[in-house]
């Protein structure tokens, strides 16, 4: 372990390094060999399982049946045949991929818009019982989905919506609202009140203020929440298999994969490729929108 006392050598080193932040943080090596080793072990443990399955998905079916992915290095053969089969063969995952997209997009657009309106009202409009209602909406966050699922499904069956995408869209919208309203309200609230007053003096109504002033200012927050909601819906299994029970036509990727994992538990050439078909979208989102993504995930971590 290096001593923390600023020896001349260290000071010289510090002088050559540009401070990364105002507090003068410097990039340094990990504190000791053991610490580096421990971090490395964790990093490897966190990567190997995914890497193993990824490599498996690219191996020929016969190889997958007879040997583990680590034998690939002595006999490297790659193929996209598994992806071809899982997407367009008997499992036809391409259909479910489309379903996932069709389910996810309205399930993001609708709750985000409704929540924007509601949270603007809770932040800047005056009406009776406003604060009570807001606390009630906030408190609804703690209701686990399970508590609502059975009667909600009953409602959809009674309304004869079963077997269409509507139960999925509406359920995801409802389950997103408490968190969305709470988060967006906080951001709307942060907009300086003088801005509102100035607009009002100029004769702008609530609609104008909402569309022209507020929405552009809270766009980053909306984006963060939208990304969180997108991934939540894309990755969801519970709502999918309850609201689309028995309706193969409208099930998303996750539902189909979970089913494959149960019924064809050892067809690894299909399962491995299938898993990566479903993983690729979130990973792309992660890579390109990492900042929003982390913010959204952290903000929404209580949801469920």
């Amino acid at each position, binding site marked *: 372990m290096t001593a923390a006392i600023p020896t001349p050598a260290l000071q010289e080193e510090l002088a050559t390094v540009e401070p990364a932040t105002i507090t003068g943080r410097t990039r340094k090596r*990990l504190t000791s060999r053991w610490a580096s080793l421990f971090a490395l072990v964790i990093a490897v443990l966190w990567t190997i399982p995914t890497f193993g399955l990824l490599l498996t998905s690219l191996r020929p079916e016969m190889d997958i049946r007879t040997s583990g992915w680590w034998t690939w290095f002595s006999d490297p053969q790659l193929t996209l045949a598994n992806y071809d089969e899982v997407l367009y063969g008997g499992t036809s995952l391409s259909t479910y991929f489309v379903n996932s997209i069709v389910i996810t997009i309205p399930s993001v657009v609708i709750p985000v818009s409704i929540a924007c309106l509601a949270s603007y*009202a809770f932040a800047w409009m005056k009406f009776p019982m406003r604060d009570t209602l807001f606390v009630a909406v906030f408190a609804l966050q703690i209701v686990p989905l399970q508590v609502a699922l059975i009667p909600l499904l009953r409602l959809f069956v009674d309304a004869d919506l079963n077997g269409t995408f509507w139960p999925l869209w509406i359920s995801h919208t409802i389950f997103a609202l408490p968190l969305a309203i709470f988060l967006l309200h906080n951001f709307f609230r942060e907009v300086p009140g003088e801005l509102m007053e100035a607009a009002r003096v100029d004769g702008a109504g609530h609609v104008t203020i909402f569309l022209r002033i507020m929405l552009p200012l809270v766009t980053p927050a909306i984006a963060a929440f939208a990304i969180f909601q997108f991934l939540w819906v894309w990755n969801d299994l519970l709502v999918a298999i309850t609201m689309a029970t028995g309706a193969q036509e409208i099930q998303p990727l996750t539902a189909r994969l979970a089913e494959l994992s149960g019924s064809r538990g050892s067809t690894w050439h299909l399962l491995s490729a299938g898993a990566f078909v479903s993983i690729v979208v979130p990973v792309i989102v992660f890579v390109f929108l990492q900042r929003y993504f982390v913010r959204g995930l952290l903000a929404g971590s209580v949801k469920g």
Partner: protein
Amino acid sequence: MDNFEKFGQMALAVVLFVGVMGAILLLVGRARRRVDIWQSLAFVLPALLLLGVGLIYPAIRTMYQSLFDRTTDEFLGLDNFTEIFTNSDMLIVLRNTAIWVIVTPIVATFIGLVYAVLVDRSRVEAFAKAVIFLPMAISLVGASIIWRYVYEYRPDQQNIDQVGLLNQLLVWVGLEPRHFLVDSPWNTLFLIVVMIWVQAGFAMTVLSAAIKAIPSDITEAAQLDGLTGVRMFRYITVPSIRPALIVVLTTISIGTLKVFDIVRTMTGGQFDTSVVANEFYTQGFQLGDTGLASALAVLLFILVIPIVAYNVRQLRKADLR
């Protein structure tokens, strides 16, 4: 339904919705007199209606159904709850849930914290963090499939090679391969590994932000006093980020309490691995016992409330935003 038709339906839904929202805004915007109450109603009513019909009513209905039999015909009082706490299968479900909720938050938070400290301000920090965080992006179904392959078991015979990494490691060190997902009670721990694998990234990210927020004069003063390494971690880092630690622990607990996807995908709740959230699905949607399923959902609700209440209070204190 072909793909074209599906996208058509999607477009229709979005257009319909945008149309309704546009109409609301237009009507409110054209209102001559600024009667605030009507404008406010137009803004909040869609959300309140949806929440009332889709969340509050169903929740009350579930509580009501939990007092009835499987078809909601006969009033049973608290019999469903009695069954949850006496039936031997249900007791295993409760035991498993308890193990999940105790083990996952502690281990995930510990790994996340240690990793955050170790990579803090190192040269490869951004990359090292991305590696641990990535599992958060993957669906729990995907994560379960990834790990099921690690646990994959092949019978121990001469001409059969193991394809699961863990069993191959056992074979390499001269042990017999095992049915990791079948042998109870250890199989629950192997399922928990998946949740830890996912949640450590969350813990690491929040705690890393908290560590960076520790005022540098505190750490510098401690360094001048000769505090380094483990003692620095123990006496400066951990106490400084205590509120964030509690938030992380409780948040992971809540997520773990409701864990469903992992059990469903990996074992389907067989081999004594079921948990409350999975049993809810099995009873309610596969065995058609609405009463018992509702009771399980209510139990889940009751278990979540104290943790959330505590979490919210801590969140206020920690002021992570």
